Every structure is written in C-alpha cells, then in structure tokens.
C-alpha cells in the first residue's frame, strides 16, 4: 500500500499512473531485476514485483485476479528456454501463456495488458528496457476498466 502511495505522490497529484504487477521467477528474472537495481539502471517505478519459484508456478488465475483487483497490466518473466532451474518449468508455462494471451485477447482484454517475457539473471538492462516498454504501452492504453471489480 505504501508503495502505491509513493508512486502516486511522485506524479502530479491525482494523475493516473499505470500499475503493473510483475511475476518474476526466483532464479532468473528476479535476480535480473535485482541486478538492474544494483547496477543503478533507471526504470519506471510503476511495477510491483511478486517473486515466484518458477514461471511454471504461475497459475493463470493469479494474472486474472491481479487484473480484477485493479492492476492495469501483468507481466510474467521467467528464465530463457533451456535455462530453467527446474529444467522445464518455463517450457510448460510457455504453452499455457500462449493460449492465455490469445484467450484474453479474444475476450477483449488488450494484449498489452498481459505480457510474457524471459529475463536471465545477467540481463539487468533487458529487464529495465522491458519494464519501460510495458509501462509505456499501458500508459497509452489508459487505466484498466475491464474485469476490474468495483463494489
């Protein structure tokens, strides 16, 4: 919550800022994000990182719940194919995500709101570049109003 407030305060008061929930695998992408931080690479602060053991651990319901709870986009990142700590978790995930993205797109959720990528532990720069790209795309789209549950 405090993080959310910081982001909002840093922009002009009341202005909408994209909120991106990123699911990063522990072994590659989370370390890649860490490297980006350690290397002092600047990237947009709009991303909220959730660490998961493996991209194969990610249940599509996680992503749908994030969107329903007000995330403007979700980003999933795992190890490059062949580099998975658990040998094949990311390969099993790749099939799932290909279909999930198609399904959501068909349902009418813009494809920029559900993004998947690979970032290795040494790719701090790549992680920053991807976050920048995703946040830029979501900023253009505007806030997510589909699927969001409003009480």
């Amino acid at each position, binding site marked *: 919550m405090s993080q959310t407030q910081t982001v909002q305060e840093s922009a002009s008061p009341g202005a909408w800022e994209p909120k991106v929930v990123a699911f990063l695998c522990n072994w590659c992408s989370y370390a890649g994000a860490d490297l980006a931080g350690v290397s002092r690479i600047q990237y947009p602060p709009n991303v909220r990182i959730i660490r998961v053991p493996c991209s194969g651990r990610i249940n*599509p*319901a996680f992503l*749908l*719940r994030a969107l*329903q709870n007000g995330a403007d986009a979700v*980003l999933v990142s795992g190890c490059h*194919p*062949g580099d998975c700590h658990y040998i*094949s978790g990311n*390969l*099993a995930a*790749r*099939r*799932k*995500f*290909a*279909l*999930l*993205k*198609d*399904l*959501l*797109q*068909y*349902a*009418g*959720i*813009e*494809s920029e709101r559900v*993004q*998947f*990528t*690979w970032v290795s532990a040494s790719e701090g720069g*790549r992680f920053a*570049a*991807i976050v*920048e*790209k*995703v946040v830029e795309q979501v900023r253009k789209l505007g806030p997510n109003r*589909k*699927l*969001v*549950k*409003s009480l």
Partner: protein
Amino acid sequence: MIASHQIETRLREAAEGLLRDKKVGLFLGYEKASLPFRTAPLFLTEAEKAKRLVWSPFCTANLAVYLPRLFKAPADAREAKTMPPPPAVGVVLKGCDARSVITLIQERQVPREKLVLVGVACPGMVDARKAERALGDQEALGAGEDAQGNVRAVVEDGTEVTLRREQVLADVCLECRSPTPSIHDILLGAPAEARETDAARRRTADLGSETADRRWARLQQALSKCIRCNACRQACPMCYCKDCLLDQTRPRWVGAGTDISDVTMYHLVRAFHMAGRCTECGACARACPMGIDARLLVRKLNLEVEDLFGYRPGAALDGVPLLSAFAMDDPQEFLTEP
C-alpha cells in the same frame, strides 16, 4: 444413412449380450424422456431391461460425464479395502463422446480395460431448443424422425410438422468434424469419414474482427444473463476435479455472486481449464438454463490450440495431453522483447 430404429435394435442386442455375459456390470445409454426432442440417460444393470434403450436424433447427452465418478479413486486406505472394485462399464458413444473418453483415458481418469465402448456413427443430434423455437408458439407433444433424417413433431392440435434437419441440428454437430467414434469396441451404423468444415472458424471470426472494446462489450452482454448456477461445469465430462478452483474459499479465486466481473472471471477460468481438453460435445451450452452460448470462449480457444500446436483434443488415444507436454520449439511470438 442407416435408420435410427435399426441402430436401436442392434444397440439393444449389444447391451443385452454384454450384460447377460457379464462382460459389463453397468451399461450407460439413453431412454425415452417425458418431453419431446429429449432423451434421458439410462443406467442399465439387468439384461432383461435392455429394451428400454433408445437411439434417436435426440440422444444429445454426453454419457462420458458419468465415467470419472464411477472409477473414482478411494479416499483413503480404509475405503480402499472396503470399496468393491468398480464394475466394467459399457457406454454408448457418439463421435464427440468418444473424444471425451479418449481424453479421460489420457488423463488417467478412467481405465480403458474397464470400458466396453459401443460407438455409434453419429448423424448429428437435434438441439431441443432450436426445435422448440422453430415450432414457435405451438407446443410439441411428441417427436420422431422421418426416413431423410428430418424431425417430425406432433403439435397441440394434432397436426404433424416436419422440421428440416439442418434447421434443428445442434451447433456443435454443424461444427463437428469427426462424427464417427475413433475409439470403440463395437461400432453401430455406417462410419462416416472425418469431414472438414470451417463452421467454428466462421462463428469465431465475426467477433475476432471487432476492436477489443467491442469484443469486450459483446462478451459482457452475452455473459450478463449468467446466474452462476455452475450447470456448464457440472455437465462437462472434462470437469472432474475433486476440489474445483471455483469452489475454493481460501483463497477465493472467483467471487460467488453475479457481479459481472466475477461472472466474467468464472467464464474465463472455465474456458482456460478447457484449453487443449475441450472435446466439443456442447454439453455446457445445452446445460445452460439461460441460453448462454457457453462455448463462446472455448470454441475460439480450441481453434488456437489447433493453429498453434496442431493439436485436436481427443483425436487419438496415443498422445500426451497438450498442456502436460512441451517442446523446445513451441511458438513464442507472443513474447515481449525490449
């Protein structure tokens, strides 16, 4: 085309023989229902009662839905000791039902050796709702079929109305590409070759060409009728999980009410659980009391499964379920690159 009553006679003989010779302890088929255009599932255990079995263009139900629960694993060691072993089961299958059985065998929900599959080359089944709509405000009292496979209905004033076959066939049957069971121990009727039809593709194309906002609006409109009765889930032969994600409360993944956001979540989750598994029997759409096209999302997902991976659920017994496998060269054009 072999007339339904000929198939019916042979079906009764087959069931009677299987039960009499104790090849099966239970035979699943269809019997006459109290309403026209419909049949009811029949659970037969006695050979003498085999003449209750019927075969008509109204045998829509997918009987594969009963199989996983018949072969349910014992809950614990004590139950394993006391529970009698499940009987061998004979079951009547159409093309779509056979695909469901293949998928259930692949997912190890039913043992192949305990099944006697009586396949029927399916000419296509009648959508009861379409037939009722076609009759307008006249209520049907009885229904049957003529030699050409058209549906004949007797309406209230005693007159007979003929409904053209193409007019009343279920959507899934119009989209069906393999109406003859690819797996069977006994096959009744004249087997038809797998046929190509792009009916499903045409149906998904009109929604696919819209903008994202329009697609979303159309989906919301279609789903706004949903009362969250879970009938589509219950009717689905592929939905056999003991603990369904939709019923879990810690955490509650999908809210319980009919808030449109929760309803959409329900349908997205249900559709995605069908990815690479839906055998296109149309049980979900038939079960919906609100008349929602419950296959709206799954229909498209199945096309994606075919386009991306060249996989057709339930097409062949030797194969690994799509999402249980992977390949190094799976498509990954959908990935975000910096």
